[in-house]
């Protein structure tokens, strides 16, 4: 399966198993979503389980919260993560803190799905990676898968989770892994081991980072599209890297990360989001706190530049293999 099919399968499984699961979003019903993630689901489960909505992200999340409080498990699709901002007040002020402020009386198991990241020539409003903002909000989990297998397992766990989850989907990975080189012919998920996705229901635990490749020379902390870029960069450089796919940004699996860096003594962090106050900042701060005495070199951050994602310079903006390699060199040399 590609990632779109894997996500579709996750929602299909959940709609089937749990009558309280409902999907909501712009163009997700009859049409099946602009990225086709919900294709066929309205036909299968009906218009009352798979709801087309008005174009009002605040209203979508606001009503989803109420539905969740009334026993449903809404899965809300934000068409692009760039358009999540009208919903931020409901997310921050209501969704994330309901359980805490009511001391457990109320909670809202809402999952918010949003395609994120660039690499599809979408320009500045179809390319953003806003995860860092949400990791600063207490009470919501933030998840980003990097392959179809994880996408399905993590989405199922997100929907089943009794806490709200922001589930960010790196849209550049929908149809295939991407190593950061736009000039290479596109490859699909067919060849990739994690493109093999069971039809049946399975969950993968939230809050657990995954080691993608094992190595001793350096730890690379990354997630989403950048996982594949980092794997390719490490391979190109011929470095033995412990590449960790963070998977869940919040709450963070500090243990796995700390153990790796304590072993390798070097760390590179890579994400697509802009650098300043990006999630790499938290990763770097955490690593230096947990591993200070083991570090042999300064932690390097590779990230999008601190500008909006520019349409024409997508590939100068995107932190591709060159930038990862440059950072690896600095981390390894010193």
């Amino acid at each position, binding site marked *: 399966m590609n990632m779109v099919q894997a996500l579709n399968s996750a929602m299909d499984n959940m709609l089937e198993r749990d009558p309280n699961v409902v999907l909501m979003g712009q163009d997700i019903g009859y049409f099946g979503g602009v990225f086709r993630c919900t294709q066929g689901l309205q036909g299968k489960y009906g218009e009352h389980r798979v709801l087309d909505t008005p174009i009002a992200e605040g209203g979508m999340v606001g009503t989803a919260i109420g*539905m969740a409080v009334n026993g449903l498990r809404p899965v809300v699709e934000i068409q692009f993560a760039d358009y999540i901002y009208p919903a931020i007040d409901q997310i921050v002020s209501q969704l994330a803190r309901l359980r805490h402020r009511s001391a457990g009386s109320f909670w809202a198991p809402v999952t918010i799905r949003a395609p994120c990241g660039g690499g599809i020539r979408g320009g500045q409003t179809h390319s953003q990676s806003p995860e860092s903002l949400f990791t600063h909000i207490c009470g919501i989990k933030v998840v980003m898968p990097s392959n179809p297998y994880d996408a399905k397992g993590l989405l199922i766990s997100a929907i089943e989770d009794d806490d709200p989850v922001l589930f960010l989907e790196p849209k550049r990975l929908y149809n295939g892994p991407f190593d950061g080189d736009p000039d290479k012919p596109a490859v699909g998920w067919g060849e990739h081991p994690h493109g093999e996705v069971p039809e049946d229901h399975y969950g993968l635990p939230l809050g657990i980072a995954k080691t993608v490749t094992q190595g001793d020379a350096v730890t690379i902390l990354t997630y989403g599209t950048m996982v594949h870029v980092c794997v390719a960069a490490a391979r190109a450089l011929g470095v033995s890297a412990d590449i960790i796919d963070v998977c869940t940004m919040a709450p963070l699996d*500090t243990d796995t990360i700390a153990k790796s860096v304590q072993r390798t003594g070097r760390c590179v962090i890579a994400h697509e989001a802009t650098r300043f106050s990006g999630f790499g900042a938290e990763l770097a701060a955490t690593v230096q706190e947990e591993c200070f005495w083991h570090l042999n070199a300064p932690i390097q951050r590779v990230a999008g530049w601190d500008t909006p994602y520019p349409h024409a310079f997508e590939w100068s903006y995107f932190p591709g293999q060159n930038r990862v390699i440059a950072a690896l060199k600095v981390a390894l040399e010193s």
Partner: protein
Amino acid sequence: MGRRSRLHIPQAPARPGDRPDFSYLETSPAGAVARPNIDATCQEIEPISAALIRVLGDDDSAVGPWNPQLGPEDLRTGLRHMLMTRIFDERMLRMQRQGKISFYLKSTGEEAVSVAQAMALRPSDMLFPSYRNQGLFFARGCNPVELMCQCLSNTGDMCKGRQLPVLYHWKEGNIFTIAGNLAIQAPNAVGWAMAAAIKDEDNIAATWLGDGSTAEADFHNALLFASVYQAPVVINVTNNQWAISTFQAFAGGDRGPFSTRGLGLGVPGLRVDGNDFLAVHGVTQWAAERARTGAGPTLVELVTYRASAHSTSDDPSRYRPDSEWDDWPLGDPIERLKKHLLALGEWSERQHHALQSELEENFKTAWQEALGFGTLTQGPQLSPDSMFDDVFKEMPPHLAKQRQLLRKTES
């Protein structure tokens, strides 16, 4: 400065030093407004959407099609709960002044809104209040000790010390947790109602927000989703004329009544004398039945007056004439229902006094009981440890670690 401008600036009718001026308030005689069928279309309802629905006449009788025809027992219950609300508010204000609680916010003058509306709804209907709806809790039978403990942030506090006083909730009573963020609960109520419809259950949702809060985007979101999915919900705007120091005209109140805000979306509106217990009850019953039978949402504007300060942090003498409340054309909801009961021969001044004393006595006892659970600074104390609970369902490691750190630095 000096520059000519042609920007229109809404004006408050009177400021400190001015004579109160309520000439802007369009009213109508009791019984004058027709009552459409509950399944009437929005277009059919539109002609009355701006009219002020009233039942209690100047002669203290109940007249017209909106009279809910309540028996004397119900009327006395309503009076009791309104009086409870008022006395509770007064006592808690005193407690705040005495430094026992950190903050308080009264609903004085608006008691009919919450009490009559709660009575017109079913206990299984879900309520999404604003911070000025304490009457809902009394009308639904919440033990005042619970509310007091919340205001005290003590060991009996339903919020475990996490919320500002008055931001209650009552799960068993089907009352949602109150947010400090204005209007944010309105789309939640609509979503709750949508879920009821999806599940084919016949409970409905009701929500409240202030005149000033209608400016927030969430009011629009609520109306829109209620309209599109015909959600079984009643959206109530408590127009108490003021939003802190800001006159309701700054929310567009002088451009058309709040009851008409949904008409362009096909959400019918009713405008009701919010200090007329019977009218509020009648209108709410109508809207609730409309929602319950699948005829769709209603927007209800309750015209009332915020008789007290916005909160204990506010001093209204800075921005409005002190005597406005005395001149308020729609009177005092408690007085009006009391007079109606007196006129019916179902109540007496003696009974009223006795009720008042009973309630005061009850609250005194309740307060003592609440104090037994401690105050912010004295008596039994919640453990600060508990603040790390409920951020997530299960505590993640970083919060456990922070709790450990807190223990260390506090010890």
